[in-house]
Structure formats: C-alpha cells, structure tokens
C-alpha cells in the first residue's frame, strides 16, 4: 500500500471509474503542509549557481522557453516577429540556442506554423476557452480541434476550476480526457490555474487529476491570474510528476508559466526541477517556462557569462 496512491490507485482506471472512487483517491493523497513546503522552496532558492553551472543552466533555460504572446492586440506581424526571436534569440550569436516553442492564441497558430516551418520549434496554442474555460465542452473541443488543424503540435488547455472547486472532479477529468482525444498527436499541457485553486492540497489533487486524464504536461497558470507560477506551487507539481513516474513508469512534464521574468528566477526553478524531480527532468521535453520577457533576461545573463561584462537591454531585441 502506498501513500502516494492510496486505495487501489495502482490501477488508475479503477480510480477514475466513478466520482466516488475518484474523490476518495484525490482526498487520500498525502496532505501538503504549506509552511514546510514554502520553507523548502525558500531554502532551495538560496542555491548559488555560478560559472559553468550557471552557463549550462542559462543555456538550458533558453531551450525550455515557450515564448508566449497572449494579448488581445496580437497580430500576425507580432507573431512573426516572435517566431524570428524564437529561432534565433540573438541574431548576432549563433551559439545561443532556439527556444522550445512559441505559444499563441488559436487564430494565430497558422501564422506561427508558417514562420517556424522546418525549425523543429513547436507551436503551442492555448485552447478550451482560455483563460477562464467558461464555455461548453463542445466549444472547448472545437477550439482545440481548430488549433490542431491549424498546425499546433502542443495544446495548452485550462481545467474547469469551477467544477474542481465544487468537487465535480469527474467532470474535470472527463474534459481533460476529451480534450486529449481531440488533440490527436498534439501534446497536451493541462493548465491548473493554481492561483484560483487556493491551497497546495488542491494543487496536488489537480495535478494528479490532470496526469490521470492523460496530460503530457501539467502547467501552473494562464498568466492572466495572480498569483501565477510560484516556486512552492511548482515544487508540488514536480513532486506529483515524480511520484507519478515512480508508480507508472510514465514520465510527464511540468510547465511553470507567468511571473517568471529574470534569469535568476529561472535558475531557481531549475534547481527545483533538479533537486525535487531529478536530473531526468532537466530537458525541454519535461520542463518548460511559459514566458515572454524572461528570454531577454536570459540572453543578457548568457552574454554576461560569455563575455564577463554586464550586459544592457539595448543589446537584446525587444519583442
């Protein structure tokens, strides 16, 4: 009998068979003590990453960025510009790697796909009535299919927080399963919107729900709700994918999104990935940053490490 998966959780199908069994499973997960969790995150945040290990981390962090624009004012021009930045974050320095993906709204997927053709950079699209998720399932599925049809190979869906908070876990799960199916070959990232879940116990439950529903990644936030990603929230989610992998052998990823603006922040997140989930997760297929302005700070720090001089924002392209 395992604490991680109480009841007959070894068999996830059985756990998800009924609303009752699902609720029993989620509420049987070990509790999260807020103070202890936050203390652990704060202690790991004191890790001092210097020299080669810092350069390595900056390089990896750039490769893990989902370069994101999710504004009402987004235009094809803005997206094309972002795509250019994604493939060559620093036009003058070929040593700077490309990012992992570009993340846009569904209607701009086609533009991004075209701009990134042949680069290997993924195109991610938010879907399912992002960011609130307040629509019918049909509309959410249509939203997803549209994005996939337009060429998105990663879908960032939002869970129904209303259903979750009112205890209708089965409904949340069914939506995730349905969206996963609508994704086809596209990878699914399930946004928990942790800022609306209020407690770390809920973050842990929602993480397991998303993993059980087939999410390839669990993602903290839409970026539209404060607080967005935090170190302790990500820590809980990393524990979930670690424990999920230990039981099922299936390695899923985590994406921290929103509010991560500096290289220093990014390295703190990587330390969490390293020391909580393990070195196996230090890979863009297993951990991502959802960010926009972060990339420029990573570039400035990257150059600082490379040249020894403090860099200036004037020397990195604004997007």
């Amino acid at each position, binding site marked *: 009998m395992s604490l991680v998966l109480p009841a007959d959780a070894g068999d996830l199908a059985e756990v998800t068979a009924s609303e009752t069994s699902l609720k029993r499973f989620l509420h049987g997960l070990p509790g999260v003590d807020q*103070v202890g969790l936050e203390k652990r995150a704060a202690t790991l945040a004191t890790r001092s990453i210097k020299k080669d290990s810092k350069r390595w981390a900056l390089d990896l962090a750039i490769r893990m960025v989902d370069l994101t624009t999710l504004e009402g004012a987004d235009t094809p021009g803005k997206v094309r510009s972002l795509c250019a930045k994604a493939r060559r974050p620093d036009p003058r320095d070929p040593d700077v790697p490309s990012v992992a993906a570009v993340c846009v709204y569904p209607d701009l997927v086609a533009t991004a796909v075209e701009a990134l053709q042949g680069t290997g950079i993924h195109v991610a699209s938010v879907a399912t009535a992002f960011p609130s998720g307040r629509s019918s399932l049909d509309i959410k599925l249509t939203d997803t299919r549209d994005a996939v049809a337009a060429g998105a190979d990663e879908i960032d869906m939002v869970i129904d927080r209303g259903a979750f908070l009112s205890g209708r876990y089965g409904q949340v799960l069914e939506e995730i399963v349905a969206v996963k199916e609508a994704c086809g070959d596209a990878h699914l990232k399930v946004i928990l919107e942790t800022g609306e879940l209020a407690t770390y116990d809920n973050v842990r439950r929602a993480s397991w729900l998303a993993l059980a529903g087939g999410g390839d990644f669990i993602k903290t936030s839409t970026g539209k709700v404060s607080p967005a990603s935090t170190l302790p929230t990500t820590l809980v989610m990393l524990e979930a994918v670690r424990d999920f992998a230990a039981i099922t052998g299936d390695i899923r990823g985590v994406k921290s999104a929103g509010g991560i603006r500096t290289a220093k922040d990014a390295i703190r997140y990587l330390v969490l990935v390293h020391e909580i989930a393990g070195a196996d997760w230090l890979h863009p297929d297993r951990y991502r940053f959802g960010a926009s302005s972060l990339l420029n700070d990573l570039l400035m720090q990257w150059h600082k490490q490379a040249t020894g001089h403090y860099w200036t924002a004037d020397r990195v392209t604004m997007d």
Partner: protein
Amino acid sequence: MSDRLDVRRTAKLYLGGKFPRSESGRTYEVEAADGRFLANAALASRKDVRDAVGAARKAQPGWAGATAYNRGQVLYRVAEMLEGRRVQFAHELVDAEGCKPKEAAAQVDAAIDRWVWYAGWSDKFHQVDGGLNPVAGPYFNLSVPEPTGVVGAIAPQGSSLLGLVAVLAPIIVSGNTVVVVTSRERPLPAVSLGEVLATSDVPGGVVNILTGDAEELAPILAGHLDVNALDLTGCAGTDTTELEVLAAENVKRVVRPPAEEPSFEPVPAGPRRILAFCETKTVWHPKGT
C-alpha cells in the same frame, strides 16, 4: 470521668491508597510533646520507599490526566473532609506540637484554607504561567506548565499539619504524585491526614505518606531514579549536600531547604511553589492552508 478505656489507634503507612504496616515490621514510639506515649508509628524502610514510588508512578498518568477542574474539586473535597475533623486535628496538634488549643485550632483552619487556596489554583496557574509565544514566523507556539511526575518530599519537622499541607498541596495540584516522609517526632497528624485523603476523592497512590526517619529515607528518595523532583523543605537548617549529590544522578529538580523552618501561616504570594514542580512544555505548529 468515665472509666471507659479509650480505643487507641494503630498508626500505619498510607501507600497506594492502602494502609499497610512497614514491610520491615519496624515501629517506633511516638510521644506527645509532654512525653506521654501516643502510639507506635510504622518506621518506614527502604523497601517501603520503593513501593511508595512504584505506587506514585502508577497513579501519576491518571492523576495528571484528570481535568484541572476535577483535581480542584478533589482538593476542595479534602478541605471539606478536614473541616469535619477540625476538633480531632486540633487535639492531635496539641499533643504533637504542645501548642495551646487555640493555636492548634488556628493551625488546622489554616491547613484547611490552604487546601482551598490550592484547589482554586488547579485550573488557573496554567494561564498565569503559560501562554502564546509570538515567534517570528508562521507558527502557533504555546507554552504550558505540566507536572514533572513523581516528587519525593520531606515534610517539615516542626509544623506537622500546616507545614505538611503547604508542601503536599502545591505538589499534587498540578498532577504530580508524591511520596512524603513525615516529621519524625510528630507523624500522627500526617497519619490522620492520610485517613482523610483515603476517604476523600484523592485516587490511591497520588499521595503516599511514610512515617519514619527522614535521615534514613531521604537518601533513598533522593537516589531513586524514578523520582523526578525532590522537595527538601523539611530539611530546613540541615546540610543537604549528600541528598543533592544523589539527586544529580537523574538530574532531579530540587527545592532546597530554607535556612530555618519558616512559618507556613502566610498564604504564598503566588503559584511559584506549584511551578517549582512543573515543566514548561512548548508546542509548535505551522499555520497554513
């Protein structure tokens, strides 16, 4: 003057709620202040100390586990029982201490009132001594006094009732149990008090009264590793170095003897004597959602 022959008492030990003779079979003569023969008291032995400590240890968790309100009622009940025997105790004090009847009556009244005073403290000293500690972090942090466990006490040699009560009551009110060695020369009021305790609601083993020689018994108590604290108030004016050395073997809490036996008449200024036999326990818990 009646020619009825009075029925004398047999003064026994009070141990584990029962009244055994000393396992050693030893007794000693107790005389009144004027030299009259009063009784043969049990001369408690090393093994009686062992048995008494065993009884006290056994009774301790239950007594400490009773509610403070309940302990307060039990102590008050002792006062009630004593009140009904004021005359008896006054006579015994006249015999034991050679004081005038009026003075003896005052001593008995003070002893009764001391039980009442400590009864009232049973559910109050925690708040006076304990409380919330405002630590610099998201933690609930509370300190409370708790009984230390089993206490060995040497009762005052002079004040055979009031002094005894002034020593006993603050020890047990918090939930400690006690093994007390009485005044050697004046043990009978203590024996009678044992009879009162047995018929009040004090659970057996909470108070164990050994009559006999403190010089013989105190080192055994002081060296006993299942005794947590030692009250040497009754050793007033004597050199207790040897006892304190023995007490160090298991780091006993020691209440040292005063230079001379004090008057126990004034009501203490506060619960310090209760707290001398308490441990401060501090509990931390995080505050979070």
